[in-house]
């Protein structure tokens, strides 16, 4: 019978423990969170439940205030019951999964497991989130049933956001349990779940530590500034913009050093770590540690933010030689300059490592070492290369893992540079090349396959069958395409409409493409359409550049047509004879949000950040979004309702350009509807889930009727909203121009200055919306906002 997790217990409420508990609550589990009774209680406090639970309750409170938010929705905290180990361990008796997240001390962990064993129900899973203690040591002295149902399950901080979930069996772990966690991590926790071996630091931290230490060494060797290294190891090589040194500041140098020291002490035999033992700690590292300059949490580390007497903020960077903080420079390196011009990742990386400047040499040696080291870790830390790559991508937010980078640079070229720098590449890589295989991965029949070193052949990456990865079907002939979109058959009579423009911005071609795709689907008898893509962000909304240019030229005829077309497009999505389902992840702004609102259903990744943000650029939602909010408010009114709070509730998300920070939160902003849109925990599944929805809807699909019954409140509503807007203005939360824009939103949503409430049709509201949108485009302040956004990527408050 398939195991179900209904109740989970988290033992230990530190930053990790409470974050893990929050994520369990996020996915809807009944969660128990326990921690110790404080040591230093007075006799009076010892009898007081509040005092006894002060550690766990304090930690949970901190978790509710964490930024970025640990909870999808702050109300989910009520799913967590707290208690302490002395009084409340019985709460774990009926837990299906007990996860230990306490201090990294073997004897203390063992002591706790002994108590757990006495209470847990047989068959319940017990796991440890340890990052440094071998799993097999933790179960010494426990019963066979305990051992059988025990393994390591390793989250990364913060648990909601870091996508990696490492599963580490020990020798007698039940294979069925391991399979369970591999699936559970993906489907329920929404994680990239990776099977590890019981080796020190498992996969991600093992490779990550090597990578970090190598960067330190090479920084010295090539005499680079930390700003330069961060530029070389950031987005230019498809990694987060924190690069290397900023990342240390973010993680906290003390924490990072603990992990480093652990790996160094536990891996004395590995070919890289063994070379480090005679090296001294760099003097800058000693300097930072001695002064407790651990990074962001101690206000300074490798970098320091300062304010001058005028309040202007700037960043200082540590000069590694002089140990002085100096104004941070904007690094200029020829290698980076050359690489920036190249769009294709393989060509870009090749250009970088072949460049003769210091940056090029640095990266050449860095990748050479990374490749060799990673090759030698298979099969030591993982049987398969994809586990290593998945772990680095998910745990360190690299776009690509070592073997994927290696594929971009070329396998043979990688071997050549590795050896040129004196590294030894694993024999299996050479065997692979000798057998005529030129890459670690390849795509066949729409599926990603990896080189399996055991069978010496390519096999499908397990677990990805449930994902629809659009890159894998590129070699099929598209059903339709133009410069901004690509439409593929994703099976079972379902089309996928993919954005292909820069930042997935919605432009004219895309609109035409979607209209055409809907026509094709209707006329050729397709089951329906998924609008989805695998990019980090679904879409940032309409192509602002285009709109701005036309407004600058005062070409209001073209603009009018454009807005009308976009309105008709979203309306067409709703009023077509086939279901249209939108699958989102990441940013879903403006026009993209309007598409979601007009879809028959949404398959919305929990990590979707959704908002009608047009006010920020001096506009109102002009693709039927303002209209739709009026419709949604109207749908909530009931006989005898006072209506105003509902109207305000639907007005505010537009007027204040609010962005929901999770799919769940978007329900509260009325951007998603409970009976229509669904939150998908694992973003990688959203297109597949959207396809399922299309198929479910297609069976007996009834095209919705055009609405003529939208109740708008006219002057009564306007007076209420104008009054509310005035409060924002008096409170300095809105500028004069914000007020003007907000009043336009109000005007559309109330149906204008009608004498009393009445029913109107959607087109009437769309006309008001379009007029308001165009009138704002005629205002210089809107032009200034658009320009500011285009040049700085930040909203202007004028």
């Amino acid at each position: 019978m398939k195991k179900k997790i209904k109740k989970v217990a988290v033992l230990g409420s530190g930053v990790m423990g409470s974050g893990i508990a929050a994520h369990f609550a996020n996915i809807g589990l009944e969660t128990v969170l326990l921690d110790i009774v404080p040591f230093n209680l007075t006799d009076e406090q010892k009898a007081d439940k509040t005092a006894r639970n002060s550690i766990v309750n304090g930690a949970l409170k901190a978790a509710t205030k964490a930024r970025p938010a640990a909870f999808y929705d702050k109300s989910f905290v009520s799913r967590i019951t707290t208690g302490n180990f002395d009084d409340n361990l019985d709460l774990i008796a009926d837990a299906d999964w007990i996860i230990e997240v306490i201090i990294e001390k073997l004897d203390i962990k063992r002591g706790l497991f002994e108590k757990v064993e006495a209470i847990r129900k047989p068959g319940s899973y017990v796991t440890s989130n340890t990052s440094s203690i071998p799993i097999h040591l933790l179960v010494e002295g426990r019963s066979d049933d305990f051992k059988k149902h025990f393994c390591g399950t390793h989250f990364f901080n913060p648990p909601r956001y870091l996508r990696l979930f490492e599963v580490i069996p020990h020798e007698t772990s039940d294979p069925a349990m391991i399979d369970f966690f591999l699936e559970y991590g993906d489907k329920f926790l929404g994680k990239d779940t990776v099977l590890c071996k019981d080796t020190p630091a498992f996969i991600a931290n093992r490779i990550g530590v090597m990578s970090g230490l190598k960067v330190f060494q090479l920084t010295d060797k090539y005499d680079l500034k930390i700003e330069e290294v961060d530029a070389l190891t950031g987005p230019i090589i498809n990694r987060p913009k924190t690069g290397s040194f900023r990342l240390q500041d973010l993680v906290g140098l003390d924490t990072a050093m603990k992990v480093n020291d652990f790996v160094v002490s536990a891996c004395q035999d590995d070919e890289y770590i063994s070379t480090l033992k005679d090296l001294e700690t760099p003097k800058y590292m000693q300097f930072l540690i001695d002064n407790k300059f651990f990074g962001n949490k101690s206000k300074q580390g490798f970098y320091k933010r300062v304010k001058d007497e005028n309040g202007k903020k700037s960043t200082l960077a540590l000069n590694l030689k002089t140990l002085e903080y100096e104004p941070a420079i904007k690094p200029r390196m020829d290698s980076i300059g050359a690489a920036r011009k190249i769009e294709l990742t393989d060509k870009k990386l090749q250009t970088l490592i072949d460049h003769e400047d210091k940056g090029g040499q640095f990266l050449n040696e860095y990748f050479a070492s990374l490749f060799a080291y990673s090759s030698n870790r298979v099969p030591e830390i993982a049987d398969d290369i994809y586990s290593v790559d998945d772990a680095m991508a998910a745990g360190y937010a690299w776009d690509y893992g070592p073997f994927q980078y290696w594929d971009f640079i070329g396998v043979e070229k990688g071997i050549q540079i590795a050896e040129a720098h004196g590294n030894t590449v694993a024999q299996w890589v050479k065997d692979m090349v000798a057998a005529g295989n030129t890459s670690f991965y390849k795509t066949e029949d729409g599926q990603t396959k990896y080189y399996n070193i055991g069978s010496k052949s390519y096999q499908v990456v397990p677990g990805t069958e449930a994902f629809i990865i659009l890159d894998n079907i590129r070699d099929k002939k598209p059903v339709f395409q133009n410069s901004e979109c690509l439409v593929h058959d994703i099976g079972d009579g379902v089309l996928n409409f993919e954005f292909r423009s820069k930042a997935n911005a919605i432009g004219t071609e895309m609109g035409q493409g979607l209209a055409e795709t809907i026509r094709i689907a209707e006329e050729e008898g397709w089951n329906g359409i998924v609008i989805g893509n695998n990019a980090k962000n679904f879409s940032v909304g309409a192509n602002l550049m285009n709109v701005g240019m036309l407004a600058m030229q005062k070409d209001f005829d073209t603009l009018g047509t454009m807005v009308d077309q976009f309105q008709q497009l979203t309306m067409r999505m709703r009023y077509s004879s086939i279901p249209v389902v939108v699958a989102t992840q990441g940013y879903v702004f403006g026009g993209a949000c309007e598409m979601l609102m007009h879809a028959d259903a949404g398959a919305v990744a929990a990590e979707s950040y959704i908002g009608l943000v047009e006010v920020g650029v001096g506009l109102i939602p002009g693709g039927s979004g303002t209209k739709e909010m009026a419709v949604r408010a109207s749908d909530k009114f009931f006989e005898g309702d006072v209506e105003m709070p509902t109207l305000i509730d639907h007005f505010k998300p537009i007027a204040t350009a609010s962005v929901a920070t999770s799919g769940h939160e978007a329900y509260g902003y009325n951007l998603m509807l409970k009976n229509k849109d669904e939150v998908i925990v694992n973003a990688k599944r959203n297109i597949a889930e959207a396809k399922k929805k299309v198929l479910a809807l297609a069976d007996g699909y009834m095209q919705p009727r055009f609405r003529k019954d939208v109740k708008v409140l006219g002057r009564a509503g306007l007076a209420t909203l104008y009054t509310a807007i005035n409060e924002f203005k008096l409170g300095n939360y809105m500028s004069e121009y914000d007020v003007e824009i907000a009043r336009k939103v109000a005007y559309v949503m109330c149906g204008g200055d009608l004498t009393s409430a009445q029913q109107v049709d959607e087109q009437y509201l769309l006309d008001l919306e379009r007029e308001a949108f165009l009138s704002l485009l005629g205002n210089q302040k809107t032009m200034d906002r658009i320009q500011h956004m285009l040049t700085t990527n930040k909203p202007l408050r004028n």
Partner: protein
Amino acid sequence: MEAYIVAGYRSAIAKSKRGGFKNYRSDDLAVDVIKHLISTVPELDPTIIDDVIVGCANPEGEQGLQIGRLISARALGKEVPGVTVNRYCGSGLETIAIASAKIKAGMGEAFIAGGTESMSLIPMTGYKLSPSYNAAMENINYHVGMGATAEAVAVKYEVSRAQADEFAYNSHVKAAAAIDAGKFNDQIVPVTVKEVFVKDGKRTESEHTVAMDEGVRRSTTVEALSGLRAVFKNGGVVTAGNSSQTSDGAAFVLVVSERLVKELNLTPIARLVTCALGGVDPLYMGIGPCAAVPKALKQAGLNQSDIQQVELNEAFATQALAVIKTLDLDPNIVNVNGGAIALGHPLGCTGAKLSIQLLEEMKLRNQKYGMVTACIGGGQGIAGIFEKL
């Protein structure tokens, strides 16, 4: 014919939404207070009372359906009429003025006047915020929120955050001292609230008695107050700590004619010498007393220096400070037992509650003239001058 106040009582003022009356209706509370009030004057046949005048700032929802009439019938019998009066935060004083004026005009001889308010049950803006479109187009600030007015007053009258916080702190200190000295004991009617809730899955009955004002925070400090966030304005000065507390409460006085006093041999406590109102820009509503106080003094033929004690409703510290400064009031005679920042501000009840508090304190200090004044949302001020007998 002269009108005299012969008795006055109030409930304790409870914290709204968290306090002892959070589930108790304000009509029930008013009935409790009036029943007690009338029991202290056994010489008077309740059925001869001409009217029960009930101040209430949000007479809708639980306070709708003619709360004044409902209270009179339940407290005194169906023969006794009742009316609801709304002058927002001035309601409780307004009703005493109406009662006194009616007696003086010969339109009756016995009135119960005061106010009741549950801020727990009725939202501050009522259930349906529906400002007038025409008014909003003429002047958007007709419907301005109270917090925004307090910020506007702070800017115009140059009240600093530090001054506001210190004022708030002193309000708590004075209120705590007054409670400790038992100064409110004689004016408060203890009210027992019976409740039924589901506890641990079972229907559970419980009861508690509310006998003392709940708002005072004895542990507060200027530092603690200065750490609070401005709530109405980005970078503003008005915080939850230097604003009045939202509260639940009821307070009523018995006003009778000179003739009845003599006939029944009653002992008058005081008389309302006069009461005046004035209007100001709604955006600076907090400064309202500055328009009302000079008018009241003039009507009474008194100088400001004749007034020995003032209850100035502390809607907001910024507003109270601006009024004290503008009118040049002696801070030592204002709110000697603390104000609404510490003790709470149950809107429609407040005027009557402050009047009762003032008269008790005047008795202790053996003073002759005292004043109750309050700002009123929408841009008004009210000031009533009492003479203690």
